[in-house]
Structure formats: C-alpha cells, structure tokens
C-alpha cells in the first residue's frame, strides 16, 4: 500500500492524472499526464491503453483515436465513452489521441492487428466496443476509489452525471473530487453486454449533442495542418506535371536557384521540389520551372477511348478474379425465358477536398527523428510511412494529427507526407510546410477508377430475376470490386468477377469506393428488368428483398417518406435504389426533372431510409447522409476527369466543376430505422444511392437509359435523342 500512498501524494500535487485502463486483465495504472517519459515507458512496458484524463476541477478529456474530417468523430466516439463512464458532458473536452496504433488501434480492420484508420465509414463500428469498454472501466475505477474512500461495498454505489453516489447516505462526490483518493482495483473487469448501461438510461447514445468541433469552426480558429506556423519554418512546393509517373529533367536549375528566397531544389522521381523562405517565393519559382518530362506507363492512354478495349476484355474468354459464384449462372442464363445484357461505364472522379494536401515536417539535425503535423485519415502504419522513408525507428517519429479539411479517401494516402519528409530532410532541423496547389491536387490526384461493367441477367416467365452476372473491367482491385456483392437480394444464381487493366493513372478510394459505379450498374439493371416486365420498381425490389427483413424495412420506409405510389407533378419522376455500404442498408428515392433543351437534370428531392444499427448521434447521421447525397449529385451530374495521351486534362474548379449551392435539391430527408444492432457506417451510405436513383427516375420520365457516369448535359441530350 505504501506505493499507492506515495502515488496518491504525488497525484495531489500533479493536478492532472491519466487513468490508464488496461485491457485483457492487465492492471490499470495512474500517473501524471505531465510525466510524459513515464507515460511512454508505461505504455511500452505494459501495452496499456489510455483513453481519458481527469482534472481536479472535474474536467474530463477524452481521447479520440480517429481523424475528424467532418464526419463528427470528435463528438460521436467520446459520446460512446461518456455514456458508459456516466460523465457530465458539460465537463468534457476532446483531444486527438496520440497516433500509436498498438494502444489506440481497432482490430476491426484486420483481426489481431490494431490499426488507426478513418476510412470506409468504419470508425463507429471499429471503436464502438472499445469506447464502451474503456468508458465502463473508467467508471469502475472511480466507483472502486469512492468505495475505498467511503469504506462501503461498491455494490452500494451508483453514478449519475459525473458523480458517484453513496446509496447509504445519498452522499455525492464529483469525479474530479475523487482524484486524491483514486485507487486501483486488484483486477479490472472486462464488461460484458449485460453489464453495460441499460439503453433506456442513455443520455448520449441516440441523443443529440451539439458537435464539439463546431464552435471553433465558425470562429475560424480550428487548426488544420495548413494553418500550422512553426519557428524557422520554410515552405516547399513540388511540380509534378500532369502525366502520372513521368520523370522530370530540370532545364534551368541555376536560374531557379538564383531566384529570391529559393534555398534548395529537391528532385523526386516524379517531381521537382523547391524550398523557399516564403510561400509566395516558392510558388513564383514553381511557375518558372522549365522541365522536360519523360514518357510514363500512362503515355498514350485516352480515357474516353479506352472503353472499346474494355468491351473486348469483357467479351473475352479469360475470366478475371471471381468475387461471387453462387448457384450456376450459365445454366440460369441458358434456361431463362428472357435474358438481358447491358454495359455501364463511369469516368474518373477526383476527391476535391477543400483543403489541398499539405504536411509540415521537421527532421532532427542528425536525421534520426522526425515530427509531422498533418491532416491524415491515418493508415495501417500510424506513423504514415515516415520511419521507413527515413530509415529510422518508429518511436522516433511523432505524428501530430490535425483537423482535416476533407478526406473522402484522398488523405488515407501518404504521398504528401513523404514528400514533406523528403523536403524537410534536406534542410533539417528547419521545419518545412509543403503545400499542394489546387492544380497539383487535381492534376496529380488519385482518382476513383474508370470502369466498364457488363451485367447479364436472366428472368423467368413471371419476371423474377433468376441470375445476375456482373463483370467489372478496370484498374485497382478492390477499388473497382467493392460493392459488387448483392447478398441481400434473393437471386438464386449470382456471379461477379473483376478483370484487370492497368493504365498508369493514380487511383484511390473515393467516398464509397467501388460502390458508386457498381451499385449504379446493379440498380439500373434491376429497373431495366422491372420496366421490361412492366413492374413497379419498388414492388420489384420488395420481392428481391424478401429474405432481408432489415433491407425491406428501409424500402417500406422510403416508400412512405417519398409518397412513392402517389401521383407526381407533371414532367417529374421518381427513381428508387437499394444498397448496402459499410454494413448499412439503405433505400433512396429521388425526384427529378429534365430540361430537354439543355440536357440538365435537376434533382428536386431526395429521401433516404437506412438501417445502420444503433445511431450514436442522430443529427450527425443526418448531416452525413445529406452531405453524402450532395456529393453524390455533384459527382453524378457534373464531375468528369479526363485523360488524353496520359495527361490529365483538368486543373482547377474552372474545368472540374463541383456542385454549387444553386444546384442543390429543395430537400434531402433522411430517416434511420430503429435498431439495437452494432452501429455501422453512414458517411458513405448516401453517395452511391444517387447515380442509380437518378438514372432510374430518368428511365421512368423519358423511357431512355443513362448508362455512363457522369450524366453530363451532352450525354443526357444524346440519351434523349436515341
């Protein structure tokens, strides 16, 4: 006990302590947060996890292990924790956790491998059980400490809104007041489902709390990485060209080095970097670069001509990677009363997150350490590849996660972090702020892949779909294959495969990944078949979803919300789509009209009904669905990135237009089905509903098909005139 006493004495003077809450039966420890060395040592030694800081004034700091890119993680994950801790929300503040995946990672990405990655709408699912467990354990420690202090059995204590209550005399003690009396239980329990708080007593889960990050965001004081200013900081820019992978030869090095403020030219395999005293000097020098670019593997590629080649690949005999093979698709098609074969296409799209990529990196004088300030969606390596890049131990790299000015998948790459590191190494120990211009961000982006999808379906005499075969041709593996599964549909014969091509264009996950193009193709195919058999598309899906009660519930809800079966205004039509993304089931309905002169489609209303399991923060979920739908409309109606002879043709918002306010629908209404199932992702659930719902509404309105994303006015006019 003497150790405990001395610790207690120490705590009294320290002001702030950390509760280190053990996992898997490891004992928790309490030490000063200010004793960073000791914290690090403990973390290393015991593989403990640390989620909460408690101050004597009762202030509670909860660590958020996820990135905050607008999806509300800064509020929703702490809300889960606070629920089980039974904390007083008014005393809670939230900080990003250190980027140490062995402590703060979730194993929901891959079993037995803890990862910090905010992508795929995974964080609520990934951290739900972790935050509950940690919150419940924090409460347990506080109750244990109060029990020791009051010398009563723990069973007689309860908690309420940040206080422990003694059942005997109704005495109360705030969590902060317990700091001098904190003591560790012999064993910290792992709580099971039945021991967590009864949902009927919930104060946070399912109950809206204003988002904690919003007040600073309206003041303009939120710190994004691009806002970082450090003493002695230099600026870096890179010229990367618009032919991905081309190697540069700089023709005017001495001229550039002679420019005011330019300190260094740093060559990369695919770019020329410049380091200057100021940003304006760096940008001015970038414009003066005279570079000859080599050919690259993308040379000769034309994004609008490649579909012919992709059609041939889809027709070819050699199968690609088989993703689904249930039943016997070939015999289903042979014995069908009616068969369908339709090709769908989608061009590249770009992330266009509003904060262009940037990173601030400082490398130690000896090159043996580095510190990074970055807005990252993190990664399988929570040190973002910097240790490997510099050839130094991981513990010598500190990542300071900042707020993200949008992610959408682009910030789960580390290219910009490593570029910043490459620049900073050249001028160590001075920090370098690397900024990508919008033109850099667009032209040297990493896009959602272009694909061609060939769908073949078989139906019996009653118009039931008996088989669906889906072949996607494109570059990027899971980037094009995600969303190709249709487990929720009662179709006896299913087949799906991916046939690879490689074009040398940089690719990356883009909000909802392959689900956008794949669900577009699948859901349009469903409507084409329904139309052939003169069946209502919602009724048709009701049969397809007969074995998915959760899916069916979203369908019925969306039908009711959108008044699906009622008459509609002249020259308008509704379209419907159903899909699964990130474990969430959704039905979407949109109402559109078409300007037959200009070819412009207007979306008037959008309704979605989703089952995402338990909803942590309802209004935040609505915001995510609204945003996902609007980004979907933007990509479906406007966004088109093209490549000619390997060169990206767009460079800024003048030639890559995204949705503006005058183009938004009158309403986006979202409803969530009540559920006690594990929470799943919503950030990406809305986006893939848009293309299919619009195309299906267009089919109903005009009898014509839109089968190539985006639905530019030219393509719409072409469809109308066929």
């Amino acid at each position, binding site marked *: 006990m003497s150790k405990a006493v001395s610790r207690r004495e120490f705590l009294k003077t320290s002001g702030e302590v950390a509760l280190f809450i053990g996992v898997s039966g490891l004992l928790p420890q309490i030490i000063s947060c200010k004793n960073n060395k000791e914290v690090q040592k403990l973390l290393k030694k015991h593989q403990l996890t640390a989620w909460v800081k408690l101050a004597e004034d009762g202030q509670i700091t909860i660590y958020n292990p996820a990135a905050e*890119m*607008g999806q*509300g993680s800064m509020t929703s994950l702490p809300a889960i924790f606070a629920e089980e801790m039974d904390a007083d929300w008014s005393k809670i503040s939230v900080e990003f956790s250190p980027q140490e995946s062995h402590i703060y990672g979730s194993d929901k990405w891959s079993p037995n491998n803890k990862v910090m990655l905010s992508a795929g709408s995974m964080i609520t699912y990934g951290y739900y059980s972790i935050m509950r467990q940690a919150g419940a354990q924090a409460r347990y420690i506080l109750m244990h400490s109060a029990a020791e202090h009051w010398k009563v059995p723990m069973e007689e204590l309860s908690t309420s809104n940040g206080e422990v209550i003694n059942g005997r005399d109704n005495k109360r003690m705030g969590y902060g007041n317990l700091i001098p009396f904190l003591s560790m239980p012999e064993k910290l329990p792992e709580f099971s489902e039945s021991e967590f708080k009864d949902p009927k007593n919930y104060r946070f889960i399912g109950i809206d709390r*204003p988002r904690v*990050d*919003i*007040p*600073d*965001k*309206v*003041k*303009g*004081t939120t*710190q*994004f990485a*691009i*806002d970082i*200013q450090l003493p002695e900081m230099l600026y870096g820019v890179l010229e990367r060209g618009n032919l991905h992978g081309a190697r540069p030869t700089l023709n005017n090095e001495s001229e550039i080095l002679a420019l005011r403020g330019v300190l260094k030219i740093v060559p990369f395999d695919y770019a020329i970097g410049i380091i200057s005293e*100021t*940003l*304006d*000097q760096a940008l*001015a020098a970038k414009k003066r670069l005279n570079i000859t670019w080599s050919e690259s593997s993308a040379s000769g590629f034309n994004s609008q001509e490649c579909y012919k080649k992709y059609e041939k690949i889809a027709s070819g005999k050699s199968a690609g990677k088989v993703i689904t093979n249930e039943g016997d698709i070939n015999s289903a098609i042979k014995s069908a009363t009616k068969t369908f074969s339709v090709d769908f296409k989608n061009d590249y799209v770009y992330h*266009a*997150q*509003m*904060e*262009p990529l940037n990173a601030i990196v400082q490398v130690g004088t000896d090159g043996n350490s580095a510190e990074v300030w970055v807005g990252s969606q993190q990664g399988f390596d929570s040190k973002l590849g910097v240790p490997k890049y510099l050839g130094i131990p991981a513990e010598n790299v500190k990542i300071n996660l900042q*707020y*993200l*000015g*949008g*992610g*959408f998948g682009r910030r789960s790459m580390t290219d910009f972090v490593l570029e910043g590191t490459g620049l900073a190494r050249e001028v160590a120990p001075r920090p370098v702020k690397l*900024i990508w*211009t*919008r*033109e850099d961000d667009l032209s040297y982006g990493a896009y959602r892949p272009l694909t061609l999808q060939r769908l073949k379906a078989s139906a019996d005499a009653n118009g039931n779909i008996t088989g669906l075969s889906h072949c996607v041709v494109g570059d990027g593996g899971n980037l094009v294959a995600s969303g190709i599964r249709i487990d929720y549909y009662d179709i006896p014969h299913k087949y799906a495969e991916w046939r690879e091509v490689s074009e040398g264009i940089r690719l990356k996950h883009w909000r909802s990944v392959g689900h956008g193009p794949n669900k577009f193709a699948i859901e349009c195919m469903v409507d084409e078949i329904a139309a052939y058999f003169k069946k209502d598309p919602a009724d048709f899906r009701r049969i397809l979803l007969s074995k998915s009660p959760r899916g069916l519930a979203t369908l019925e809800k969306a039908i009711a919300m959108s008044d699906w079966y009622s008459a509609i205004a002249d020259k308008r039509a509704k379209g419907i789509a159903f899909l699964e993304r990130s474990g969430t089931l959704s039905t979407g309905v949109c109402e559109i009209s078409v300007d037959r002169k200009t070819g412009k489609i207007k979306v008037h209303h959008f309704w979605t009904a989703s089952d995402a399991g338990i909803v942590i923060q309802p*209004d*935040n979920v609505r*915001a*995510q669905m*609204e*945003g*996902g*739908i*609007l*980004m979907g409309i*933007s990509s479906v109606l406007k966004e088109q990135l093209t490549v000619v002879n390997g060169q990206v043709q767009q460079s*800024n*918002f*003048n030639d890559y237009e*995204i*949705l*503006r*306010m*005058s183009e*938004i629908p009158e*309403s*986006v209404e979202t409803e969530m089905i009540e559920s006690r199932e594990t929470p799943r992702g919503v950030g990406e659930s809305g986006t893939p509903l848009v293309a299919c719902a619009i195309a299906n509404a267009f089919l109903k309105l005009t009898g014509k098909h839109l089968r190539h994303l985006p639905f530019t006015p030219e393509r719409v006019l072409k469809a109308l005139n066929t």
Partner: protein
Amino acid sequence: MASQSLNINNKTYVVDLNEDTSLLWVLREHLGLTGTKYGCGIALCGSCTVHVDGQPMRSCALPISGLNKNQKIITIEGLSDDGSHPVQKAWIEAQAPQCGYCQSGQIMQAVALLAENPNPTKEEIKAYMNGNLCRCGTYLRIVKAIEIAAKKH
C-alpha cells in the same frame, strides 16, 4: 518589394513584400491570420472570402498592391472575438459545418449578404452564396443557418 500598410480587423499592419503577393498569403503566412483559407487560388471556391470595405472579396485574387491603407479589411477573426456574431451563432444552431474548411468563407459571404439584404429568399441566398464551394455538402444547412440569422436580426 515595397513597404505597405494594411488595415486588417481595425489594426494596422505594415508588410514588406512583393507587390503581387496575394492578400490571402499575406493574411495566412505572413500575419498568421489563418482563419481565411486557401482553396483554389483563382477566385472560384470562396474559401478565402474576406470583406474589403464591407464587400465580400476573394483574397486569393487580390494582390496587395491593389489595396490601400484606408481600405478596411475584415477577416473571420475580425467578425467577433468569441463566435458571438449572429451569423456564427446561427451556424452553430444549424450545426452547419462538417470539415469546416470552407466555412470561414461561407460565413463572410453570408454576413455580406445579410448586410445587403436582411431578409433574403431561399433563391436569393442560393444565388448570393453560389460562389462558395463546400465539398462536404453542407449547403442545405448553410441555407438554414442564413435563414435563422435573418430571422434573428
């Protein structure tokens, strides 16, 4: 290079920079007023919106040589010390921001709108705000926030 005085948030700053340096880089990288954001550099996204004599301007496309010391520049930092401007409060009430990066510009544009037209219709709001991009898709809530602010004026 020329020494130049700028009146920003009712404070005088003297800068000694290349005269074609944009007001945006001066604010952000030289004066540390980072609430004003860089988004496109060609006046197409509105993230860098500030007020110059009450008019919303894209600071990325304003070389400092085009400004004089009598022009009053207001940035998001100059709107209020504590986020208490009615438009900022309405933004919170509507829970408008997501990533938040474009929101300084959105708010500055909205403040200018309401100064000009205290009771805008939905269509007037959309037209006035059309130059401000938001990739997270918060437009519906921005409209709502402006309507809240207008009502409370």
